[in-house]
């Protein structure tokens, strides 16, 4: 019996009898119907078809949700709809500053950088600064801060990073914006920078621009904020993940 080139549908031979025509047409029609359905398996609006592992048999992929884009699955074996990764900042947490120390733990490693925003930190004790410690690591000589740009021949010499200058314990004007870059990598020390302003022990203000480093290679998963001496009366810390 003759067959078609691409799909192998059975067709009558040139020598077939006319009386068998109806049967031959029915067989061909059934074959076409089956193949067409295999190539177009979609049954719902917006579904698309893609080739399966079987020749001439496609798989239906239902339409995604609003805003999703077509991408390739993690096994690189099939297309799939996925929510696109967007840039920008995600607010991870907002925490009121109180007590002697606030620890932000279980920081997800799903961002590129972290940004810490401190608003209106007010110490209970005058003439003290707000500090940041990475990974609750109080071991000696693992943190360092510097206020000048350029090459610096330095040694890690601190157990925490000052986020502010010394402040008085009334009338806070503190704003701190600190960034920690590539915080989840596990092969290099960590680096960051910050801008901060706060009310000094007098009526004046301190404006800081710093860069800092932490010598350890582990991913940053927790941050401690504390007044160098005494409790924190008020203020908020906002933690953002930045992509």
């Amino acid at each position, binding site marked *: 019996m003759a067959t078609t080139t691409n799909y192998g549908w059975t067709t009558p031979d040139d020598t077939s009898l006319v009386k068998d025509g109806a049967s031959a047409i029915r067989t061909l029609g059934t074959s076409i119907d089956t193949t067409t359905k295999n190539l177009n398996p979609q049954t719902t609006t917006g579904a698309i078809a893609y080739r399966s592992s079987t020749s001439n048999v496609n798989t239906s992929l239902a339409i995604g949700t609003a805003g999703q884009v077509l991408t390739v699955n993690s096994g690189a074996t099939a297309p799939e709809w996925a929510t696109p990764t967007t840039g920008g900042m995600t607010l991870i*947490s907002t*925490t009121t500053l109180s*007590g002697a120390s*606030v*620890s932000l733990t279980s920081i997800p490693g799903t961002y590129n950088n972290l940004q810490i925003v401190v608003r209106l930190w007010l110490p209970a004790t005058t003439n003290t600064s707000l500090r940041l410690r990475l990974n609750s690591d*109080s071991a000696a000589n693992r943190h360092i801060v510097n206020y000048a740009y350029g090459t610096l021949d330095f040694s890690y010499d601190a157990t925490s990073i000052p986020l502010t200058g010394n402040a008085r314990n009334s009338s806070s004007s503190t704003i701190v914006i600190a960034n920690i870059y590539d915080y989840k990598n596990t092969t290099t020390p960590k680096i960051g920078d910050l801008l901060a302003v706060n009310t000094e022990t007098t009526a004046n203000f301190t404006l800081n621009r710093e860069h800092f480093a932490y010598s350890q290679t582990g991913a940053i998963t927790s941050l401690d904020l504390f007044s160098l*001496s005494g409790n924190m009366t008020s203020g908020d810390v906002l933690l953002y993940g930045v992509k």
Partner: protein
Amino acid sequence: MTKPKPEIKIVDVATGEVIVRDANAEEISQMELDAANAAAAKTKAEAREAQRQAILDRLGLTEEEAKLLLG
């Protein structure tokens, strides 16, 4: 009257769970050490500043003149 222990607030940012507890002995020691280190650093900076001022005085230069000279 016993002095209240400093409080530690721990926030699990993944779950939102907040634990507020008294600082333990180790944490209190660390706070005291941090304060001592900061005081030592301040003393060191003040000593350095005094040394710098002494040099300026010996040379008979004002702060502005020194900045001009080094700038």
